[in-house]
């Protein structure tokens, strides 16, 4: 089982993107940083008690699922969309959704376009290797309009083409659009159109059939989400663990009951996971939130209590 393998190896192998701003990218010291990366680190802390015991394997659109299926990586946290066929036909398990995304469009302001439906005849840059090209085809078909696709291999290339005016519109997940727009020299001249043409639930993926490992990943992630809901942060996790009287907090942080043993971990697993880079909200804010230069709003990714979709099942 994967959990035993990971423990025996003493290292978690996490498949990531080859480089996606805000989600996973190595810094000048070669250390991976980002939103997806933080999830992996939390998992490593939970399983191995050491957030640094994680190795990141960059995967491309083509190689990611094979890497997972062949056991090269223990899990994939790489903005992969949860779809029916991937879950079933490709024999994968999407265990949770760490980012609710949707495909959008960005255009130059001076085109005077206010809706994606006005893009009839436009040239559109699509980043390949995801579900994007399928969604786009469906959207235009549905609205009975035409476009010229320019299929681009990676994010930075797409950005360059778009800036150079080689395509009229750029479509990818809204999070990516925001990141791209943020770094444009003339960000104010570009707008992201209101239409979100698809649902893009992005989340960690594990191999089908290893349910225990799936549980570990799923609940580690939900621990982060629950922590936000319960007000547990990296800073106060130790303190709350000793002082809190909330039974759910106690169960989560291992001061009461033995939730860890149920998934093959020890009592303090969640505490360690949260301590790495904080709860879901903290991770979001630190990597892609409004205070960063990417500046994504929580939107759908807010806690359910705030009108979002982040909803951790009860720890019970």
């Amino acid at each position, binding site marked *: 089982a994967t959990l035993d393998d990971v423990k025996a190896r003493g290292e978690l192998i996490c498949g990531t993107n*080859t*480089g996606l701003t*805000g989600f996973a*990218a*190595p810094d000048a010291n070669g250390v991976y940083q980002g939103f997806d990366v933080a999830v992996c680190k939390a998992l490593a802390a939970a399983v191995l008690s050491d957030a640094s015991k994680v190795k990141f394997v960059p995967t491309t659109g083509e190689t990611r699922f*094979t890497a997972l299926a062949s*056991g090269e990586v223990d899990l994939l946290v790489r903005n992969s969309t949860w779809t029916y066929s991937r879950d079933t036909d490709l024999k994968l398990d999407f265990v949770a959704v760490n980012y609710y995304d949707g495909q959008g469009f960005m255009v130059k302001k001076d085109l005077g376009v206010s809706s994606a439906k006005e893009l009839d005849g436009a040239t559109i840059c699509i980043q390949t290797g995801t579900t994007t090209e399928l969604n786009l085809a469906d959207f235009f078909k549905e609205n009975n309009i035409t476009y010229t696709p320019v299929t681009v291999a990676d994010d930075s290339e797409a950005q360059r083409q778009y800036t150079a005016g080689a395509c009229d519109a750029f479509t990818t997940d809204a999070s990516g659009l925001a*990141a791209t727009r943020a770094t444009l020299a003339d960000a104010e001249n570009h707008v992201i159109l209101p239409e979100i043409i698809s649902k893009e639930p992005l989340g960690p993926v594990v191999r089908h059939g290893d349910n225990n490992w799936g549980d570990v990943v799923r609940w580690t992630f939900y621990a982060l989400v629950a922590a936000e809901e319960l007000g547990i942060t990296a800073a106060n996790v130790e303190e709350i663990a000793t002082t809190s009287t909330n039974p759910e907090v106690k169960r989560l942080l291992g001061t009461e009951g033995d939730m860890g043993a149920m998934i093959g971990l020890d009592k303090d697993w969640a505490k360690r996971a949260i301590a790495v880079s904080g709860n879901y909200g903290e991770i979001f804010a630190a990597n892609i939130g409004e205070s960063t230069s990417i500046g994504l709003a929580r939107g759908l990714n807010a806690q359910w209590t705030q009108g979002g979709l982040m909803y951790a099942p009860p720890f019970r």
Partner: protein
Amino acid sequence: MSELHAQTVPFVRDSMLPQELPPASQRGAVKWVRENLFSGPMNTILTVLSLLVVFLILQSSLPWWLNSVWNANSLAECRAAVQAMAGEGATGACWAVIRERWHQFMFGFYPRGLYWRPVLAFALLFVALAPVLFGDNARKRMILLACVAVALVLALIGVGTDLAHVSFAIVAMAAILAVSHLAPARLIWATLLFPAVGFFLLWGGSVWGPIGVLMGFGVLVAVYRLLLPMLGVVMGTALGFLAACVWWLMIQTHVTTVLHNLMPWGLEAIDSDQFGGFLLAFTIGVTAIAASLPLGILLALGRRSDMFLIKTLSVGFIEFIRGVPLITMLFTASLLLQYFLPPQTNFDLILRVIILVTLFASAYIAEVVRGGLAALPRGQYEAADALGLDYWKAQRHIIMPQALKISIPGIVSSFIGLFKDTTLVAFVGLLDPLKGVTAIVRADINWKGIYWEPYIFVGTIFFLICFGMSRYSMYLEKKLKTDHR
């Protein structure tokens, strides 16, 4: 007509004329320009056109180069600096990104403190090549080694190595220079041992691992020597290989573990996914070429064999490999190899890529070697036969030494091709210098949007390396042409 009266009259010159300088119009720069630039209307037009092209290229790109920024922490800062320097709307190069990330272009994620290891390994590569490249010219070899030694020390200091390792490198190079001077024949050991040493330096880990592998070769040679008189070359080699395999697969780990427990010597282990940039390109390129040589030689011999089956298999293999793009081979490495190997075997992507690239290279090397073999006159085979040398002895002492020597230029150009093609590993998610590292650099929010500079930087380095090598191979080609008649 002074001296010669008529054709029938005998003529004898009594004083020889001295050598004179050619007339003025036949000398100097004027002649050169006239002959080389304006020797006819067509040539004049070509000259003017060429000058125009050069001018246009310079005109459009020069400002960008002149407005270079070297010091900045992000692309935005760069842009600001350019505007400040050259006014609104000006564009300029932002070399600051190279300044900040050059080490990733060179070494990938290799730990910064350990750069001395790849640098030393690279220097030792030249030492290993010295007997092959300049085997017959002691003076050139010494010059090469001395240059390598100096460059090594400079490079080590450049990448910020601590004093201990610099002095270690100096001592090592001094020893090698001494060996090269005193016993040049011994230098071949540096070549033979380099794979193990290079591996150890790059990947680190226990020193007993590589030694164990080398011991396997020792076993091979020992068994071969033992069996040779009884069973001949083929059987001897086969059994030796078998014995070595037994050693490698079953015994080695136990022995090395014990040894490691007794004497835990080693270097910090580095995972191959830390490799990137030119380090990765070189690792893949050099390993693949070196490993593909024996395979390529066998394939070339197979292709020239008159045994139908062996010939067919060799031709089939070579043509298959040469018929498909390298990129599909790389995808095979990353997507399919797992299917073909026994379940549960799982080794890392770089190794898989190296294996497939080796297979790829071996087909090309086979063709190069085949060319070398074909260039040998039949007489060499016949003379060897007539002296009573059997097939393998003739191959080893007569045919291969010559054929390989003739093939060196071809091998070098295969290496250049392969080295350039290592950029394709980006498509399977490895950090090649051109796309892989560039992509991660541009994924950094500070540098997102930068475009030309990494490409120019990487392209220039590629050019310098490949150009140097191709010049060298041309030089070799010329040299070999003269001494082979």
